[in-house]
């Protein structure tokens, strides 16, 4: 039995999620190989080769994999994946994009967003915005799985293992890259930060999100948002926390001016400690908050920043 992990990476660097997918793989058991499919991605491959419990790294380095186009990545993974019992990747927007394509081409189902490994073929995953947890077993000959990285621990560093070059170039020419607008930030990544402070519709406008920045600086926190704040254009889409946005599980989550809709809770209720700041004492967010402060955020935030 061998497991193929498709690495999440930024070509020169490995994404933090990959070490957590290795944790899921080691719980399943068996040899673990990591595929880095990218362009000028030796950097990511070298980092992958240092992850504990990985036996081998495969690198497919070609411009066809630069934009992580689902058609090309899936074609490559299908060809390499037939020899494996399990194919795993992180449930990031990239993994969610190409992995179901892999599953369909292999004529198997995909198990999305697993949060635990129960056995070699049985996993748990949240359904209905996390209001229920399903235990699912698969009899598929190749198991295709995406992993919710917030539910696993990153493996440590191990001895550097061999890196093997794969000469397969899959360039289907069905889609092409036009451009991207990436949000630049010096802060920790939302899904990896130890502390997250999020603002909702109560923030009122984009300008007011600055009130969260000073606090985030002092706590080395990432800044998140509710869907309402993103829809209103206060902040970009990549800051949305929730059922259909990013899933976070930091040590501390501070929700400011967020009511606590089930879709928002789905993305943050596994935080160790939750703080809610809301002027409505009946806001549902208080039902999950460890510490609730019923107050106007516009007076609380400056005071909090000053006292930290």
């Amino acid at each position, binding site marked *: 039995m061998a497991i193929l992990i498709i690495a999440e990476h930024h070509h020169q660097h490995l994404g933090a999620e990959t070490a957590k997918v290795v944790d899921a793989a080691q719980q399943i058991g068996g040899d673990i190989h990591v595929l880095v499919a990218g362009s000028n991605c030796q950097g990511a491959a070298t980092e992958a080769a240092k992850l504990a419990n990985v036996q081998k790294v495969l690198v497919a380095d070609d411009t066809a994999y630069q934009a992580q186009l689902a058609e090309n990545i899936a074609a490559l993974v299908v060809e390499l994946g037939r020899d494996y019992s399990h194919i795993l990747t992180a449930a990031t927007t990239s993994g969610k994009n190409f992995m179901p394509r892999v599953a369909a081409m292999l004529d198997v189902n995909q198990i999305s967003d697993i949060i635990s490994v129960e056995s070699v073929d049985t996993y748990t995953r949240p359904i*209905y915005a996390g209001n229920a947890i*399903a235990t699912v077993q698969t009899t598929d000959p190749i198991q295709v799985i995406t992993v919710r990285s917030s539910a696993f621990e990153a493996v440590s560093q191990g001895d550097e293992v061999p890196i093997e070059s794969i000469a397969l170039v899959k360039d289907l020419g069905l889609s092409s890259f036009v451009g991207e607008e990436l949000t630049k930030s010096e802060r920790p990544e939302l899904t990896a930060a130890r502390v997250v402070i999020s603002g909702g519709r109560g923030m009122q406008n984009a300008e007011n999100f600055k009130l969260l920045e000073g606090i985030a600086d002092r706590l080395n926190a990432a800044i998140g948002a509710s869907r309402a704040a993103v829809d209103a254009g206060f902040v970009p889409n990549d800051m949305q926390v929730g059922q259909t946005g990013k899933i976070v599980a930091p040590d501390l989550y501070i929700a400011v001016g967020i009511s606590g809709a089930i*879709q928002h809770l789905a993305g943050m209720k596994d935080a160790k400690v939750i703080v809610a700041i809301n002027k409505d004492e009946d806001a549902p967010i208080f039902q999950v908050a460890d510490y609730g402060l019923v107050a106007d955020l516009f007076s609380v935030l400056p005071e909090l920043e000053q006292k930290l």
Partner: protein
Amino acid sequence: MKVLVPIKRVIDYNVKVRVKADQTDVDLANVKMAMNPFCEIAVEEAIRLKEAGHASEVVVVSIGPNTCQEQLRTGLALGADRAIHIISDEMPDALNAAKILQKIVEKEAPQLVILGKQSIDSDNNQTGQMLAALCGYPQGTFASKLVLEGDKAQVTREVDGGLQTLSLSLPAVVTTDLRLNEPRYATLPNIMKAKKKPLEALELGSLGVDIKASGLKQLKVTPPASREAGIKVSSVDELLEKLKNEAKVI
């Protein structure tokens, strides 16, 4: 050109679902059902393409028991021209759903298939990508903007780092994210008109799909670890004191 929009009947997004006492599944008895919100966005986008003169016909399709005709009628009331109901007492898994939809794609030959990125019941986020794979089409998932230019679709996608724009050769599959548009409401006159629009019901068996027994088995469904409400603090000072000394997180 023709646009095909597969839609799914799911629990209303405002309902907090409960797990059955015997842990076999969630309890959907007497629960309010609706069109999956991401499917509403897909229908809206297709109708806007028609209004802008890009699409000539919008066809909605749903797989499920007779109750899903309700959501097909909603699609017609919103502006779709025609509906197809594929009769199936059981809800297919994502792979089988994609195989069924592939047959409809073969029959209807749309230039564009628009689906929701995920349904809010199973939260799988798979069907659109699987359909694209089976048809050999390119895919533009998690779309927040869709522009048609000749035989290409330019799709701006919501990704973890921000936004990515791709150009897809048509025919193609697009899946919707929340920012693509704000769906309209069906007006009463349009709801009345929708009753007269064509709705074709097809037996699943008539499509010639090779439905496999699902490789997935749901062993049980349990409630998530519950989280108790904590305490209310009365000041910023008290909050900081608790975070430092009790929770020890700062």
